């Protein structure tokens, strides 16, 4: 190649790699043009056609972050990963409102409807139920939680009825395999209250259904009253933890309360709009309460507040500890988000380890301590658990109550090794109370108020199948047919 271009006065020595180019003198420019064929460029490396990253399939929905009366949070957009079919429905839940359902997605696959419309109520209620179920499943490393009737391969969904009946109530029915939400007009009010628009109420009822799937022996009225209290508490705690599983709610909470969980706040107040309709301005129930076992009898809703209150206090205690420990390293909202996630998982593990029927608050408290120790939590976590359940009179310890109260008052929240007066190994004894006595009936009235889941794994597969079908011009499967493919996977999980 070098010889061919010698006449062009471009010298390329084949023995060296350096290319020498003549100096651009006036003489050179007036004699003959320079054709600087230095060296043929190597053929370009072909750029591969990029493989697109897997698309995250899902729908956008509008949900009430608390309920219509909590204006600071209002109604916001949320994203639900996974294929949500018209209904809305998926493999675990379907929505029923005669005359309205199935609610149809828009071209983007989203369910966005005007505030207060029947369609909007369907979407909100369905979404909160699915979010609550997924939240607890995440605490089980993505393991699918069956409904109580999902045994022997049964995969029947739960039916969500957003406007199920005219009345000031909402309930879970295992017999009817449904969650039903009422609507009513409060006395002296011009407008109706739709219980389905409350994240707290919807999450609470979904919580009953979720716990019934995990611990079916806890629902019957033949259990001791505290078991009924655990069921009600799990409902309220589902609402509290679901709020704490949403970054925007956690951030809003930190801003509004200045990071003080014991400040009056929307997080602890359960069912604000419903409570206001009944003349309770701080919500129907308050997770941040000071009730003790001696102040209640066998009413399950009253009893539930003691367990809920203890867990809320433990949440606040651990948050203060982690806030001190991680000061300057993390945002407060992130710390609270992570603490809630940790405590939620610990609670669920304890519930699963508690007796299959007749479980008491002390059973769950003891399992929380065991699980906490086994997973290597700081000692102070167990101190918080012991102290809070002792002060609530749920358990009795060798240390007199007054001393436990005094110990709480002088606890160094930053000291991970802070121990309770009783040490770390003592099993806590349940307080002798009417609510733990076998044979005492539950009073259900009261004076107080993963990605390994089929629904996560399926969308990409479904999308690929649809793309193939599009390429061949074949007809796309219906939503029902697409969801049906997941049913087989659930059948295996629930066998």
């Amino acid at each position, binding site marked *: 190649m070098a010889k061919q271009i010698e006449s062009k006065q471009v010298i390329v020595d084949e023995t060296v790699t350096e290319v020498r180019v003549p100096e651009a003198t006036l003489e050179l420019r007036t004699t003959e043009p320079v054709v600087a064929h230095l060296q043929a460029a190597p053929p370009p490396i072909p750029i591969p056609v990029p493989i697109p990253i897997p698309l995250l399939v899902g729908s956008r929905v509008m949900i009430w972050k608390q309920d219509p009366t909590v204006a600071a949070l209002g109604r916001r957009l949320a994203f639900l990963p996974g294929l949500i079919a018209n209904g809305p429905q998926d493999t675990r839940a379907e929505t029923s409102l005669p005359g309205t359902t199935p609610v149809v997605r828009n071209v983007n696959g989203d369910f966005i409807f005007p505030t207060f419309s029947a369609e909007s109520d369907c979407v909100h209620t369905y979404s909160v139920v699915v979010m609550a179920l997924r939240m607890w499943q995440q605490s089980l490393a993505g393991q699918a939680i069956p409904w109580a009737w999902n045994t022997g391969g049964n995969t029947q969904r739960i039916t969500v009825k957003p406007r199920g009946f005219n009345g000031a*109530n909402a*309930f*879970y*029915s295992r017999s009817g395999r449904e969650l039903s939400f009422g609507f009513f007009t409060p006395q002296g009010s011009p407008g109706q209250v739709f*219980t389905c628009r409350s994240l707290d109420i919807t999450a*609470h009822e979904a919580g009953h259904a979720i716990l019934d799937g995990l611990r079916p022996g806890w629902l019957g009225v033949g259990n001791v009253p505290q078991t009924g209290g655990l069921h009600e508490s799990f409902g309220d705690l589902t609402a509290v933890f679901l709020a704490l599983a949403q970054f925007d709610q956690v951030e809003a909470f930190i801003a509004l309360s200045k990071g003080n969980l014991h400040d009056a706040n929307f997080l602890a107040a359960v069912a604000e709009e419903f409570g206001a309709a009944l003349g309770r301005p701080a919500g129907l129930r308050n997770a941040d309460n000071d009730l003790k076992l001696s102040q209640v009898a066998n009413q*399950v809703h009253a009893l539930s507040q003691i367990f809920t209150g203890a867990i809320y206090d433990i949440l606040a205690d651990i948050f203060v500890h982690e806030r001190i420990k991680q000061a300057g390293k993390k945002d407060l909202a992130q710390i609270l988000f992570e603490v809630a996630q940790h405590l939620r998982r610990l609670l669920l593990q304890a519930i699963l380890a508690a007796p299959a029927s007749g479980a008491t608050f002390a059973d769950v408290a003891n399992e929380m301590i065991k699980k906490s120790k086994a997973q290597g939590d700081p000692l102070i976590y167990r101190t918080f658990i012991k102290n809070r359940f002792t002060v609530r009179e749920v358990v009795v310890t060798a240390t007199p109550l007054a001393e436990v109260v005094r110990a709480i008052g002088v606890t160094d929240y930053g000291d991970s090794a802070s121990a309770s007066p009783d040490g770390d190994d003592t099993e806590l004894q349940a307080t002798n109370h009417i609510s733990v006595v076998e044979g005492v009936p539950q009073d*259900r009235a009261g004076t107080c108020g993963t990605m390994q889941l089929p629904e996560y794994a399926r969308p990409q597969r479904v999308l690929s199948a649809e793309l193939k079908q599009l390429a061949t011009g074949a007809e796309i499967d219906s939503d029902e047919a697409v969801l049906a493919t997941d049913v087989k996977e659930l059948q295996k999980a629930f066998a």
Partner: protein
Amino acid sequence: MYSSQELNVIIQIYQSGGFAGDNESLLGRTDTSRLAPAEQERVQKLARAIEKSATEAPMGADMITYRIQIQPDDGPERTVVVEDDMNPNNPALRSLHELTQLLASGT
């Protein structure tokens, strides 16, 4: 079990429970001895239907609970509990709603 021989009974219906855990409140009361024979028969028929069909309570949480107290003038008091699962095919519930409406109308 309700006897068709009972002529006079006092029936009281109480409501409680639900998501709010409401206290028990009296929903309606009637004393059949003060009713006209046709009304008396209708009330007793509905009460019998409730007692007969309220055999198995639906499993669930937060349902409204109705307690029907039946006090015959010549026998021991009986109590029937009905949980409201809003199931229109629940015969006990159907009879109860009919009876409640009857009592609300002044019977």
